[in-house]
């Protein structure tokens, strides 16, 4: 039955306590409440408590994938634990239908001393598979994990990547109605990660998915909808493109700007950076002047400039040696002008790091990380985070 609601959360809330000793004591008290069958004052916060998840409602149908995003501590994992039935909500209710698979930890129950083969059986049983099911799928598991002969070696001799592969391979054989995934795919090499996402895509129309990830590219690829949490509360619930955009905005706003780190080496006394304009339209030129004060003649130098996006990925690099331009630094003040004629970066916030190296002896005179920032602005497709590419129209 495609389209039936498999996950339903209504006004779900969960309290957490900041203090460990107090938290354990609250645990004893909650135990008493549970055992006497009273409802207790679950709705009220006690001392040192806060709402880790606060009034969250959503539903996911078969064939849908909900991306759960937010900063660390926003309540994503807590919500996932409640959906998986590991902990009970303090408010609201959750209804889950069908067989539930949870990839919260791969390779659960692995014992390092035992062989891969033995551990596949343990892990499969923990995930709710019967011996017959595991027998039938054993070859598929070994093949998917790509560990070949190692299946008969103890798991402690595996690399961490192999353990994750084997863990995912077992979980990938589950045929759940509901699948909860918590960032487990952040590990492993790119090739295997791609394989995992392809496998998830295969399962997608039979399942209701919830994916927790900090990698917006994954969320954008897989999820139709996203739920953005901030301090336990729903900040946004709707189309993925908007949610991702909002998350990026949250991420880059205010104090989240990366700290700059400028180190100068003798005989450089000081360095300063001037950006021509910190708001540029797409394709506009970028001007950056590096002002230096040197105590003595240094001679010929070259400059490296690296542009990072808001996720600290380097997106462009320039080395003045490539341009065939010589720069010399002599005693006193000097300025190295850098000009990029047309910076074709998509709209967003960028940070620049600059390094000045001597040609002779490869000394680093200036290392300035995140020394200046600029924003590229351009046309966006309405309601999306996608930049509209200029397309040349053939006449």
């Amino acid at each position, binding site marked *: *039955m495609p389209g039936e609601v498999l996950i339903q959360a209504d006004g779900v809330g969960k309290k957490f306590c900041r203090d460990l000793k107090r938290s354990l004591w609250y645990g004893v008290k909650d135990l008493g409440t549970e055992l006497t*069958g009273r409802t207790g004052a679950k709705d009220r916060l006690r001392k040192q408590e806060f709402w880790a998840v606060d009034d969250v409602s959503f539903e996911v149908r078969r064939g849908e994938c909900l991306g759960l995003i937010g900063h660390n501590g926003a309540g994503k994992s807590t919500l996932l634990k409640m959906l998986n039935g590991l902990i009970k909500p303090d408010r609201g209710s959750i209804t889950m239908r069908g067989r539930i698979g949870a990839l919260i930890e791969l390779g659960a129950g692995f014992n390092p001393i*035992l062989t891969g083969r033995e551990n596949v059986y343990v892990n499969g049983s923990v995930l709710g598979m*019967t011996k017959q099911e595991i027998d039938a799928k054993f070859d598929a598991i070994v093949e998917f994990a790509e560990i070949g002969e190692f299946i008969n070696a103890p798991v402690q001799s595996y690399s961490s990547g192999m353990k994750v592969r084997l863990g995912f391979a077992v979980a990938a054989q589950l045929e759940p109605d509901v699948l909860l995934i918590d960032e487990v795919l952040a590990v492993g090499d790119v090739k295997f990660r791609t394989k995992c996402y392809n496998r998830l895509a295969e399962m997608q129309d039979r399942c209701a998915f919830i994916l927790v990830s900090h990698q917006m590219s994954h969320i954008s690829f897989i999820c139709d909808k996203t739920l953005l949490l901030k301090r336990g509360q729903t900040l946004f619930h709707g189309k993925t493109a908007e949610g991702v955009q909002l998350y990026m905005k949250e991420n880059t706003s205010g104090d989240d700007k990366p700290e700059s780190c400028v180190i100068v080496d003798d005989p450089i006394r000081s360095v300063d950076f001037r950006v021509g304009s910190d708001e540029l339209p797409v394709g506009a030129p970028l001007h950056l002047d590096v002002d230096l004060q040197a105590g003595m003649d240094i001679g010929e130098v070259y400059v490296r400039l690296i542009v990072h996006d808001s996720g600290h990925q380097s997106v462009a690099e320039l080395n003045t040696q490539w341009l065939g331009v010589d720069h010399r630094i002599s005693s006193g003040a000097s300025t190295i002008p850098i000009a990029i004629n047309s910076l074709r970066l998509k709209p967003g916030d960028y940070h620049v790091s600059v390094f000045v190296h001597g040609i002779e002896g490869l000394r680093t005179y200036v290392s300035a990380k995140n020394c200046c920032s600029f924003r590229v602005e351009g046309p966006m497709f309405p309601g999306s985070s996608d930049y509209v590419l200029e397309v040349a129209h053939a006449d």
Partner: protein
Amino acid sequence: MTQASPLPTQTPSAGPAAELPPSASPPGSTGSPEHPALHEVTYTPGSGLRQPGRLVGEMWGDLFASRGLAWRLIIRNLSAQFRGAALGWAWAFLPPVAAAGTFILLNATGVIASDPAIGMPYAVFAFVGTILWQSFVDAIQKPLAVVNASRSMLTKINFPREALLLAGIGEVLFNTTIRLLLLVAVLLAFQTPPAWTFPLALLGLGTLILTGTVIGVMLTPIGMLYKDVQQALTMLLGLLMFLTPVGWAVPDAGFRSYSAWINPAAAPLLNARSLLITGQADYLGQTLIMLGVAGVLTLLGWLLYRLAMPILIERIGS
């Protein structure tokens, strides 16, 4: 956003039944002939005790569903125990050998006087006592040990929690079997034939294991929150062995003559030892009472363990 669902969503229920295969659907789930009814589970803040019928149903369902996993865990733990230690399974009987050695030494030096009424060589008396005692101690410590060793699994995966308890009991039974082999060796070495009533000694042994398990399960929830429990257990059980008629016979008068009434391990231990060697059924009445009490408490302990689990997982984190 909220759609009308085919079932009321406020039905309080809880528990790790979520991973039952769809075939285990309770009556009341929706479904058409070509699509099997989906198992449905609802989580709410209310106590599981508010729907006792449903709770009991889920408990039995999960107990049934956990057999395969329990068996897998027993095999895993026993193979790891065998491979990970140079002496392997010998650790099942080394503690009672050491304890029996202590008693034999104390007896030889006259600290513990031999009572001719025991009707067997003192070494056999001490060995049988420590072997039985070790099963009791093992049964007390196992539930908390198994649960603590599975913390990361418990906080991340929803599997029938009963599997851990079953696996613990399985390991206790396995270790007990190994110790019974040691017992045979001891009887042969001291040329003491068992009495014809020896199979009946299983009653006392079983009562000891059940009593120990119940105590262990009851301590597990608090033991998961506070490490003090495990520390205190190790300390107290060492002391308790000397307060239990393991290496001494119960006198007719004085404080120690009440042992069988105040020490839960005393009556079944004395009963099993007498049936095994002398053919008398000492303390049979107390043993049967103990068995009955332990049986009832088993159900309560199981209920406590189950209701406590989500609350404990919340507090012990990831």
